[in-house]
């Protein structure tokens, strides 16, 4: 298929996944902000959210002071912020629009319908109480789109490039969500293991649909090292980094058709570190350091995918 077409599908999926994960990040942040402890500390959590999911300098120039309401507005419906949910849905739809030939009409209709609903939304319409509904709705539309893709699309290159985008983006986003908790909401020493810490890890699990999974796997109280193990190393957890890389590696193998390329090699290397990694080693290195390196390598992998498969002219 055309390199440019593959690129559109790859980014279509990435943007949808990004919209979903931005909704998840906002959801967890709002949940955490409900705690009295956090409220006391002021706006630094929102500063962190901003830096992880947006562009702090752009925000400062246009919004000024960092508040929950402003950051939420910036990351949901801000039309000038390329990372807002509004913009990422639009970008996903534009990529899909350019590839009407490669996707099914059901996929197009679903994504286009999502866009038509999001297009004219205003912060007023979202309101204070509508935000959670909106986040749920965005997640639902993302699930729906993936489901339609799974159920209607020919298993050809176009499908595989779309899937590739999903997993590359998801790996990036999950790593960022983990980093929010670990570094930004780092509790003071006396809080570790306390009620608030426990609540935060629980919220984090919920934000990646991992709360119930955690209990299924560990049958025990929430422990930071186990949460991170679940989200980084457990390959049965669909949003874990390991699961993302499992998929990425097998997709690249299919797309390469036996021709060796740098993207497949790099993915294999990252995969190995997760497949054979130990959570105790990760903590020894430092979780934040591990995540920072992971995000960097994941970005390098994305660039190499675009290179190896001639996605960009």
């Amino acid at each position, binding site marked *: *298929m*055309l390199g440019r077409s593959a690129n559109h599908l790859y*980014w279509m999926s990435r943007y949808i996944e990004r919209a979903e994960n931005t909704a998840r990040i906002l959801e967890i942040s709002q949940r955490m902000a409900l705690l009295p402890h956090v409220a006391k500390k002021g706006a630094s959590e929102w500063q962190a959210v901003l830096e992880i999911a947006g562009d702090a300098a752009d925000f400062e120039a246009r919004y000024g002071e960092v508040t929950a309401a402003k950051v939420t507005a910036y990351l949901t419906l801000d039309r000038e912020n390329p990372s807002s949910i509004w913009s990422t849905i639009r970008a996903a739809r*534009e990529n899909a629009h350019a590839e009407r*030939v490669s996707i099914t009409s059901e996929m197009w209709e679903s994504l286009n319908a999502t866009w038509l609903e999001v297009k004219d939304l205003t912060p007023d319409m979202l309101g204070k109480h509508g935000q959670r509904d909106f986040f749920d709705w965005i997640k639902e539309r993302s699930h729906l789109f993936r489901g339609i893709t799974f159920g209607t699309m020919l298993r050809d290159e176009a499908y595989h490039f779309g899937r590739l985008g999903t997993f590359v983006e998801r790996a990036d986003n999950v790593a960022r969500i983990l980093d929010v908790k670990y570094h930004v909401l780092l509790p003071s020493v006396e809080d570790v293991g306390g009620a608030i810490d426990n609540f935060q890890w629980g919220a984090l699990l919920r934000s990646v649909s991992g709360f119930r999974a955690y209990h299924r796997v560990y049958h025990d109280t929430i422990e930071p090292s186990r949460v991170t193990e679940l989200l980084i190393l457990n390959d049965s957890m669909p949003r874990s980094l390991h699961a993302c890389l499992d998929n990425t590696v097998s997709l690249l193998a299919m797309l390469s058709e036996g021709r060796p390329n740098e993207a497949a090699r790099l993915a294999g290397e990252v995969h190995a570190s997760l497949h054979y990694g130990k959570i105790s080693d990760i903590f020894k290195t430092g979780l*934040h350091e591990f995540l*920072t390196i992971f995000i960097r390598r994941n*970005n390098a992998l994305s660039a190499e995918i675009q290179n190896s498969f001639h996605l960009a002219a």
Partner: protein
Amino acid sequence: MASALANLRANRQAGNSLAAASPVSSPVGAMPVVKAAPAKAAKAKPAKASAAKPAAKVPASPRKSAVAFDEMTAFAGAGPVTPEKVREVYKTFAAWQATVPAKEFERKRKEAELLFRRLGITFLVYGKESSTERLIPFDVIPRIFTAEEWQHIHAGCTQRVRAINAFLGDIYHGQDILRAGRIPAEDILTNSQYRPEMQGLDVQNGTYVHIAGLDLVRTGERDFYVLEDNLRTPSGVSYMLENRNVMMRLFPDLFSAHKVAPVDHYPAHLMQALRAVAPDGKPNPTVVLLSPGAYNSAYFEHVFLADQMGIDVVEGQDLFVKNGCVFMRTTKGPQQVDVIYRRVDDDYLDPLAFHRDSMLGVPGLLAAYRAGNVTLANAIGTGVADDKSMYVHVPEMIRFYLGEEPILQNVPTYVLREDDDRAYVLDNLDKLVVKEVHGSGGYGMLVGPAATTKERQAFAKRIIANPGNYIAQPTLSLSTCPTFVAKGIAPRHVDFRPFVISGKTQTLVPGGLTRVALIKGSLVVNSSQGGGTKDTWILEA
């Protein structure tokens, strides 16, 4: 910590960008058609007539402009539609319509709109600052032709396109028609649409215009006129196909009550024609559709047709030239392209040969084309035959190349470069439509009867400053067709664009695009100016 976060931020990939491309091909949203107010007076022809000029006669309706021909009731005029007024071809429809409440039409109209919107069948309208995506209004009442009417149209369009292909082959080779003095050589050789690059070049099967869209209007039972030949990158065929789909979904009963000839095989015909013109008759050619991109107003159509034909939609950036051949960039590396169904205008095809700033084309494409390693459909340089100043010569082409009399008539046309014509036109601006020779989409023209004195005076100045840039035609009394509007069903003016595919022979699928001026009394059917579309039914005999 802040710097580590900033680092993360910086690493986040900004994502891709869909670069905007400027619009170049003639979009369905701006199809070059002019309909003006009803004919007023017979064209008083100036004494001197040039050789190529059609006979001076106004194509007025037999009833002398009192009322336009109506597709359903002929010349019955206003007033309630009684069964005896209804033409035979509309009888089944009229009986059905009488049983359907207006509410139902409104419901169907809304349903159709929803369908179109969900399918993303939109076009772009260009404003000063930005462009917006819009639906072309769809009218749920079909325009119906009899088999005999279609035969007439079919024969006329086929004849015209045959003559035009012969003409292009001639002017790009021996130029017999110029040497015979039938058309002034200077009109051709200095025409911006004549391409010296094509001189002496042989094209596959001698076909230049693989796809033509002819704009026809009707003024009476047997009176069809060709208003314009669209021979470059004509658009609108996707609406013919989608309108049919939607109508079948909305009105299955009405369909089963008629024997409507199918149109769905258009993409198959087109694909067959494109495959047949591959260089050296290559057996399994790679065919692609070259589009200016997602920001082109006709992009939906490009994608739609490519989808139906199972080929890739490519943009200039997807193609490159090497070894004198054209290749596309695929995920598995370069793949050679044999036939390009291009929806990009000549000027933008190769920045090394034409507009040098164009990002829409493929550098080196002209070289590959001239080397015979790739076929372009339509060929380069077809625009010289559909230029409005060349339009007046088409009947002469039919006589010269085919030795036949034209089946479809031309609208009498004044060429303002000529002194007599210009003098007449300047004296009668209030009765005429003046068009720019290279204009399209209803822009840059004067509809005399609808214009103010001031507008006419201003336009007269432009004509005098550059007379060669204009032609004028009498206003035509376009036929009307029942149309569902706010007040219910009422007659509105329509035109018709059938599509001619040229391979070894000419083929037309039985149908075309009917455009309708939704505003009462308006004769402007352009979608960019408030026009809509209808499904067109050809009844089988």
